[in-house]
């Protein structure tokens, strides 16, 4: 079927053209981005001035773009033209964006001197919030938080008919802003080390290490509180919450990586690979990385107990390799940089060890599942297409089967885009062990049409 992409141009396109207000909005975003690029290039005119130009340009532009895109339209699913637009269908704009973001991550992790200009314009904000000048991680945190909030507002407006989506997005926006940005900044102001209360072991591979514990105990009462939270969250809170609500309580309501994927990553959710092959790769990779991080923490403790007598240099090398390969390269560079090419949840799906643990709990012992409404499925494919985790939701829905998949983050978009209202995210304790059976599938049997049971 030859349906061409004719809407890459801002100036003119056949039927999917931008309206005037959208063009004005993009001009603001362009101005803000230009400000960032100039400072990235190392030209420092005035820190505060350039910061304000960039910040105001991007904020005003993006809010205006949101308004111009969805206001005056009847609330409902807004996926028109997704596969015609270059930005959302791996077109030229998408590739440029992927390369620029990837490049930014490479600079951030390994060549921070190359983004010195970007860091310096954040000094006024950093001093105001934290009482000290900015470093690359403050800049990263600022970009990240601004992206989650601005794109979160866009997402909320886009799904303003859907209470579940609104509440979920307010939640991820709040966790990012408060727990991953303002509290760490406030702690810095109080001369305490950064603490991010929305990431835990094993996603935070530094947590629970011997040197981490030591550094916390040195802080006195505050440190013990941090250690207690660090232990309670993965080993007590997580299993309980996942049993009650599925992994969504964390992945699409709390987590910062999930927060970015659900907001800034939303325009790219349809790009996830739905093939069975991808599913196989996913299961191998995510569990291997879980083993790797458990091994890392174990080795560090082993090494600590035997005072570096055994496996000393190996452990050090292994630690460095994990930090480089998994924590930086995979979760950051590929995880976010490749949004426009591979979809928004590459890290969450193939890499995140926290998601692996939550997934195992969800698969084997949780009340959560997505139910299908009898025989109402028309196999159209919207649910699978817009599943950011690459789950072939349709293959279950058309059989009327409950969807119980380790990777499902419970974002609820499949249920939102379904044109026949076939899917519902639900929790029920009475049949936890029978969820995956084709229990509710209505079909014809030798006797009659009946519910299989």
């Amino acid at each position, binding site marked *: *079927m*030859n349906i061409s992409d004719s809407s890459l141009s801002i100036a003119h396109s056949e039927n999917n*053209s931008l309206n005037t207000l959208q063009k004005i909005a993009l001009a603001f975003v362009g101005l803000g981005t230009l400000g960032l690029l100039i400072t990235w290039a190392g030209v420092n005119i005035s820190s505060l001035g350039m910061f304000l130009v960039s910040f105001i340009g991007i904020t005003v532009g993006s809010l205006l773009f949101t308004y111009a895109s969805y206001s005056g339209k009847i609330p409902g699913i807004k996926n*028109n033209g997704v596969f015609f637009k270059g930005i959302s269908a791996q077109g030229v704009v998408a590739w440029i964006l992927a390369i620029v973001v990837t490049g930014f991550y490479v600079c951030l992790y390994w060549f921070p001197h190359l983004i010195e200009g970007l860091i310096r314009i954040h000094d006024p904000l950093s001093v105001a919030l934290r009482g000290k000048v900015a470093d690359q991680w403050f800049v990263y945190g600022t970009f990240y938080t601004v992206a989650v909030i601005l794109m979160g507002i866009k997402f909320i407006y886009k799904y303003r008919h859907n209470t579940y989506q609104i509440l979920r997005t307010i939640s991820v926006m709040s966790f990012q802003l408060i727990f991953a940005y303002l509290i760490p900044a406030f702690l810095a102001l109080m001369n305490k080390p950064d603490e991010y209360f929305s990431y835990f072991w094993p996603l935070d591979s530094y947590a629970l290490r011997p040197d981490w514990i030591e550094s916390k105990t040195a802080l006195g009462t505050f440190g013990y509180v941090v250690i207690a939270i660090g232990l309670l969250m993965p080993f007590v809170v997580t299993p309980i919450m996942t049993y009650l609500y599925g992994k969504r309580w964390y992945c699409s309501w709390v987590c910062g990586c999930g927060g970015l994927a659900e907001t800034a990553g939303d325009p790219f959710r349809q790009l996830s690979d739905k093939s069975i092959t991808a599913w196989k790769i996913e299961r191998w990779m995510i569990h291997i990385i879980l083993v790797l991080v458990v091994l890392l923490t174990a080795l560090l403790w082993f090494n600590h107990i035997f005072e570096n007598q055994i496996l000393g240099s190996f452990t050090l090398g292994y630690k460095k390799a994990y930090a480089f390969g998994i924590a930086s390269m995979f979760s950051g560079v590929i995880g976010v940089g490749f949004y426009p090419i591979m979809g928004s949840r590459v890290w969450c799906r193939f890499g995140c060890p926290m998601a692996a643990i939550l997934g195992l709990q969800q698969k084997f012992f949780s009340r959560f599942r997505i139910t299908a409404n*009898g*025989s109402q499925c028309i196999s159209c494919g919207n649910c699978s297409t817009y599943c950011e985790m690459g789950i072939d939701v349709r293959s279950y829905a058309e059989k009327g089967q409950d969807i119980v998949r380790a990777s499902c983050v419970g974002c609820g978009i499949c249920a939102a885009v379904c044109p026949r209202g076939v899917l*519902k995210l639900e929790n*029920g304790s009475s049949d936890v062990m029978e969820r995956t059976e084709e229990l509710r599938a209505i079909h*014809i049997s030798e006797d009659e049409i009946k519910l299989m049971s």
Partner: protein
Amino acid sequence: MRIAIIGNGISGITAARWIRKLSDHDITVISSESDYFYSRTALMYIYMGHMRQKETQPYEIHFWKKNRINLLKAHVSRIDFNTKKLILSQSGSVKEFNYDKLIIATGSATNKFGWPGQDLKGVGGLYSLQDLQTMENYSKNLKRAVIVGGGLIGIEMAEMFHSRNIPVTFLVREKSYWNNVLPAEESKIINRCIKDNHIDLRLETELKEIVDDGHGTANGVITNKGEKIECGFVGLTAGVHPNIKFLKNTALEIGRGIKVNEYLETNIKDVYAIGDCAEQINPLVGRRGVEAIWYTGKMMGETVAYNICNKRVKYNPGIWFNSAKFFDIEYQVYGNVQAHPPENHTSIYWEHPKGDKSIRIIFDQKNEEILGFNLMGVRYRHEVCEKWLKEKTNIEIVLQDLGLANFDPEFYKKYESEIIKIYNQKTGKNLTLKKKSGLNRVVAFLKYK
């Protein structure tokens, strides 16, 4: 045994899959429309850019080989029932294909009522990939499209053009959209919805002729009111009929569709017909002979598989249900809901003040048995409604347990008590909502025999 299936739509493919599940027979599915099975109901989403054709295919390509279902892209031009042979035309050449058993699942074709100009270029229905390609070809620089026929396909087509900002004039013969199926209030909701989407809705207006631009392409229509409307595309969506033209004047007994008994057997041994193209000789009470909908096609596909695999089972589609989406308003129906109901049908109807959601519950006035549910913008659970309908549950029990039926997403406002209020006002009773929504309660209810 060699089984040939003509047509790779939902009926033919469901049959193929179930035959494979039940047997080791040799299966070949023949289609001239597409290489692989895709969801016909998703055609509109390809045009609107929500999906590509690839996304509308429920199975990956390796599925067919793995399940040993042969796919043959060819057009069946003739069937020799005596020698059990199909005459195929395949990329210009003629081939023969022998079968032991044959399933005909050729679907529907667009209705054309002899309008002048109906075969011009720039005139088309919306049924196949080829139809979609035609729409696409004429969409470039299209100033206006006129759509003829106010059914489910017509409104889909309107939504498609609207998604590309192409102005649409929508000619509907009836006084109100789809009011031969929808009760008056629901029909009005959709009228409003069509207008809110800036579609130029012309009620009680019929097509008289399609105007030729002098080069064999349509450039306008003339209505029965004498008005000429200029346009670059005319969409014909006044229903469909069984696609059986190539079977006329053969030994196969046909009426509106291919005549089949309750085992989906035709008058010729080893030949079966399913889906849109089949016509039940003795339809079940309250059902039509030809039912061109996705769900019945799927059920027939499964039924025919049992029969071919020597497990005789009657086609029984059970309690009627259907669904659609009108722009942003979802529609579901369960049971017996009629536009012009008989006297014993009493209905309680609730509508949201914004006029975009409604719930209608119908029961028998005399014995107070539940008869049907009609929903706009609210989702109800199929199995729960079906169980109530099957068991002819008393309306007051249904109302008090109505929470069980709610299938809307979490945190959505629920309207079950609103409808109970209306019932109470009507009857002077004082019912309250006893069962709220919740999966545990639903499972308990469904498992309770």
